[in-house]
């Protein structure tokens, strides 16, 4: 598919690219088959280094990470599918070895819990807003005292109603 000239140019560019100093993958680990190496790299990005715990094995310089990178490549060379490689690791280290936890019954709280909380919060806010709106529409009914004052105001003349009660300005 790829024309030889284009391939040669791409390879020349690749050869000219300096190797990043932070790259954890050692040159002697890299597979000869670029397709397999690509799959190994992308798989490694999703596998947790159990020593450092928040780095992928592709990122980590830990000894165990290197060993696991080797295992990933060996399994791929042996003809495993991506899923089989991950299953192999999970069988030994548990789902924790995957940086993205699988969606199982034991992890639904982890995956969907935040959305559930968000939903509960939204419902709460909606209720509060509705209650506030209702309050603004219909003012609180008059108390008995207010009602009697109102009646006094309506029936008597202003002077009688304006009688200030004690402590009022």
């Amino acid at each position: 598919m790829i024309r030889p000239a284009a391939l040669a140019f791409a390879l020349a560019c690749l050869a000219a690219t300096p190797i990043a100093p932070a790259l954890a993958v050692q040159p002697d680990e890299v597979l000869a088959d670029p397709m397999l190496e690509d799959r190994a790299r992308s798989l490694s990005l999703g596998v947790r280094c159990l020593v450092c715990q928040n780095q992928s094995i592709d990122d980590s310089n830990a000894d165990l990470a290197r060993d696991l990178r080797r295992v990933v490549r060996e399994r791929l060379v042996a003809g495993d599918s991506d899923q089989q490689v991950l299953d192999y690791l999970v069988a030994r280290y548990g789902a924790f070895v995957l940086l993205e936890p699988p969606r199982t019954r034991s992890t639904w709280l982890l995956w969907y819990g935040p959305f559930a909380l968000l939903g509960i919060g939204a419902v709460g806010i909606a209720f509060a807003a509705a209650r506030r709106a209702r309050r603004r529409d219909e003012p609180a009914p008059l108390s008995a005292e207010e009602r009697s004052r109102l009646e006094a105001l309506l029936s008597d003349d202003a002077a009688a109603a304006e009688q200030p009660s004690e402590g009022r300005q």
Partner: protein
Amino acid sequence: MRRLLFLVPLAVVVGLIGALGWPILEGRDPRALPSVLLDKPVPPFALPGLTPDVPGLESVELTGRPVLVNVFASWCAPCRQEIPLMVGLAAEGVPIYGIAYKDDPAATRRFLAQLGDPYRGVGVDRDGRVGIELGVYGVPETFVVDAAGRIRHRHVGLLTEDAARRTLLPLLEELAK
């Protein structure tokens, strides 16, 4: 009743702090992972010995009675620290087998000559592959294996006298029944 509703968020927060803080107060190491191999048979392996004329360790040797399997290395400081406890347990008659993880056999031999050798048998896992089969992600790790050769418990990190007396030994005793 309604007036106390404002206490609900406070109660939720206190509950969360309690639920999340309890394991820490209990002294649980948050980095310790439970083994996925619990109640599963020890993966089959056959490791060479510390010298060519010393027998190594095969997984079948671990069956027949409950045993401890200690994954260790001479380069690991906590392993050095826990060896006296292992020697003590071995003297009490606890069968302990060792897997020397990614260690130079000469260094392992020196380590054991210097600190004492609690192991009934030691297998050399030079490239750490048996460690990976066992789900080891650091040394030391100590496994309790029952008579049928199934892993029943894993202790990650330094084995303290307390952890040994409170968890491992009672489990061994129960499994021996």
